[in-house]
């Protein structure tokens, strides 16, 4: 009786944890959307003030431009921080990545958070337009590193999702292998030979998927371009490769379907 009570309590706690995990990702996404909207509004105000300052060069317009640029830079740092928090939550929720992989991605994201914290503090302590330009220049210089971190994490998340699919297929393949071992003698020998040929194809297809997955992971880890355009090209190429890897999984699925049919119509 006591054990049963404990079992229900543990189940309840487990459910609460699962809900918290989903809620934290959703919450992070909602925060990100809110901060993005705020940034857009503040940036529009800053552009108006900057244009006025550029046109009139008056003291009041300079004060307004300085005030809005500080607010905009602060909000920009907040927006990027919120986005990094969202990526971190997505990493924690990803079922296809190992703990080590998650730790590695989180470590690089944390270093970006530190940079953004300093950027935020510096933006608030700026007291001239030139000072604002200097602080913003630091972000511009750091931008390539920042974009690499973001792209690596995004590709990592996609690889994690691919790994989840691969695991689902692995379960089906294992089930098929166990079924064939357990019920080998339920089928005539001729049919069983035909079935075995499909099994070989499935194994080969799985091996080629694992190879391409490893190559993708290595490419993502060694992602280190020097400019944004190259980074964008590499990112798109990796996305294409991920889709190709998925097509290998689809091919393997079709072999499994063939195996299923061979078993179904074996006589």
């Amino acid at each position, binding site marked *: 009786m006591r054990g049963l009570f404990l079992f229900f309590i543990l189940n309840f706690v487990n459910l609460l944890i699962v809900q918290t995990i989903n809620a934290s990702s959703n919450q992070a996404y909602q925060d990100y959307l809110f901060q993005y909207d705020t940034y857009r509004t503040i940036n529009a105000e800053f552009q108006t003030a*900057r244009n006025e300052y550029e046109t009139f060069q008056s003291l009041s317009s300079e004060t307004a431009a300085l005030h809005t640029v500080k607010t905009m830079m602060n909000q920009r740092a907040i927006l990027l921080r919120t986005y990094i928090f*969202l990526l971190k939550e997505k990493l924690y929720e990803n079922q296809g990545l190992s703990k080590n992989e998650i730790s590695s991605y989180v470590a690089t994201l944390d270093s970006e958070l530190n940079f953004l914290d300093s950027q935020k503090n510096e933006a608030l302590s700026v007291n001239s337009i030139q000072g604002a330009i200097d602080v913003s220049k630091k972000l511009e210089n750091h931008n390539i590193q920042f974009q690499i971190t973001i792209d690596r994490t995004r590709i990592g998340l996609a690889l994690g*999702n691919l790994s989840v699919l691969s695991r689902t297929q692995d379960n089906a393949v294992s089930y098929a292998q166990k079924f064939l071992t357990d019920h080998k003698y339920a089928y005539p020998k001729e049919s069983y030979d035909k079935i075995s040929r499909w099994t070989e194809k499935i194994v080969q297809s799985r091996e080629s998927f694992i190879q391409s997955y490893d190559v993708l992971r290595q490419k993502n880890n060694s992602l280190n371009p020097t400019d944004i355009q190259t980074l964008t090209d590499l990112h798109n190429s990796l996305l294409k490769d991920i889709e190709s890897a998925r097509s290998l999984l689809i091919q393997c699925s079709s072999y499994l379907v063939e195996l299923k049919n061979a078993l179904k119509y074996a006589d």
Partner: protein
Amino acid sequence: MNIHAPDPQILPKTNIPPVYGPIRTKIQMTTNNSNNTFNRKLLPFVIAFFIITGGFIFFEYQTKTSKLQNRAKLTTESERPIPKQEITPIPLATESAFINFEQTVDRMKEIIQNSNLIDPSVSPPIFELSLGFSK
């Protein structure tokens, strides 16, 4: 006449002769429980019990007899040459395991084809790096 001779044992004429017919005496059951008499309400159940038991015994007898007859038939038929037919029996456990396998494959195929690998919610924000001041 001997006076000392014993008198003949002659019954007096007034005596009623004994009747040697069947003697009917009412035997009364002397039990402690007067309710222990046979309950007539149970009669249909008793009859039903006997019918069912009888039917069961009859059925068993019939089955055994027919089995013996069949065996006798088979032994006579087996002497004749019959073309050999190979049938691969697929046991029930195999069928249920196959249904599970079929469902697993179908589900897996659907998941692989329809799931999104790239999460649209993690698209990065577009922001301006340069402040855009002319000097």
